[in-house]
């Protein structure tokens, strides 16, 4: 009977631990991943570990990460037991996310999803998440949040929080007829509104990352 099971999910590959010993499971995992054909099948996969209620020590997680790395796979999340999750989070905090280790910024994940068009005002407490570009024909009010892997374009007033390029795309931009966000995030950069009350500027503005920080300029100047 197999003590480790694999399942493909939307987020990536899910590996579920069975009830065998850790050593037995690791050797089975090694065997599974080393099978002919498995190499190309699993390459580049993002892995979610489901521990099925058992705890997993930091050293064991490290061992798993190393094993997965041999097959170009990344452990992105641990679920199923609070201590194991905590251990993983602790481990992840000490190593930068894999995409930051590379010299060149990685090719941004190709955004093949359709833009999401929202024809209303997004109000406080409402959150919009989308894998592509988000276009809002209305306002984004304070207390509202839009998180997009692509650009965010607001044909209206942006006063809430926007995260463009949320999956790491540094080329993502945020544009609005009135750009007065509470906070603006592009990829892993964060900017917030100046504390002094900003005078309404016109015309429309666009925010993008330049030289490692978020800059805001009138739309259409570059």
């Amino acid at each position, binding site marked *: 009977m197999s003590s480790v099971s694999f399942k493909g999910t939307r987020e990536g590959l899910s590996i579920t631990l069975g009830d065998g010993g850790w050593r037995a499971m690791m050797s089975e995992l090694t065997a599974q991943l080393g099978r002919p054909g498995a190499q190309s099948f699993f390459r580049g996969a993002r892995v979610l570990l489901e521990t099925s209620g058992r705890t997993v020590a930091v050293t064991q997680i490290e061992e798993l990460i190393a094993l997965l790395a041999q097959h170009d796979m990344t452990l992105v999340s641990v679920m199923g037991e609070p201590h194991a999750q905590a251990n993983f989070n602790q481990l992840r905090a000490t190593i930068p996310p894999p995409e930051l280790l590379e010299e060149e910024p990685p090719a941004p994940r190709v955004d093949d999803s359709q833009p999401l068009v929202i024809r209303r005002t997004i*109000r*406080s*407490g*409402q959150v919009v998440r989308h894998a592509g570009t988000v276009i809002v024909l209305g*306002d984004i009010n*304070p207390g509202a949040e839009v998180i997009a892997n692509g650009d965010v374009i607001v044909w209206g007033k942006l*006063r809430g929080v926007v995260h463009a390029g949320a999956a790491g795309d540094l080329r993502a931009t945020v544009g609005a007829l009135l750009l007065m966000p509470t906070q603006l995030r592009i990829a892993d950069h964060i900017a917030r509104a100046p504390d002094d009350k900003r005078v309404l500027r016109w015309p429309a503005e666009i925010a993008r990352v330049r030289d490692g920080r978020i800059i805001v300029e009138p739309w259409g100047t570059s």
Partner: protein
Amino acid sequence: MPGQVLTITSGKGGVGKTTTTANLGVALARRGKRVVCLDADIGLRNLDVVMGLENRIVFDLVDVIEGHAKLRQALIKDKRLPELHLLPAAQKRDKTAVTNEQMIKLCVDLRNEFDFILIDSPAGIEGGFKYSVAPADRVLVVVTPEVSSVRDADRVIGLVESQEKPSPQLIINRLRPAMVKRGEMLDTADVLEILAIELIGIVPEDETIITSTNKGQPVALEDRSSAGAAFLRIAQRLMGEQVPFQVFHDSPGLLERLARFWKSQ
């Protein structure tokens, strides 16, 4: 024609939901409409106090819903206006005593008896808010010209819109024209710019509200107070009449001018 269910809500507490409900009830009843004010704030009932009917309560909303009393037994007739009624909240229970479906069913019965059913929603966005909005045909959001109140109103409007209700209408309460003029308070345009819903009334800050609330004598019973007059205009708008919006004068009254005169001497 079956009656309309109007829910008065705000998100934030203390902005004047109960006062608004009581006064709109009075104002509509004064225009000859059959009105019931329903206190949905189970466990923290206030509407009866503001309407001055506390000592007449025998049965309450939860008694009716649980079948311990008939609707007719629980409804309290106002002592001044024969068209006005109150369905009080239970004080010894909490918000879990009522479900959305029960409120919807109760309102089906009330629609046959009344032209307007005004539901005074509890503060917050939890169960009490939800069962208050569930039966509503229209939702009135009360906001004071403060950033925190506007923020909560925005949240509530979003929640109402997500339940496929028509967009709520806005009552701006406790506006102080003098402070707006000095730039110390959000003005009507500031509030509307964020919330972007239809305005149905502006009620100026009025000290007589405090005394009238304490006495259980809603200001809309009289025409003298500025807030009372504002509630009467909102009632007319609710009945479909076109009433122009009042521009509130912040010119000092005679007494204030005299006082300034003395001070300057």
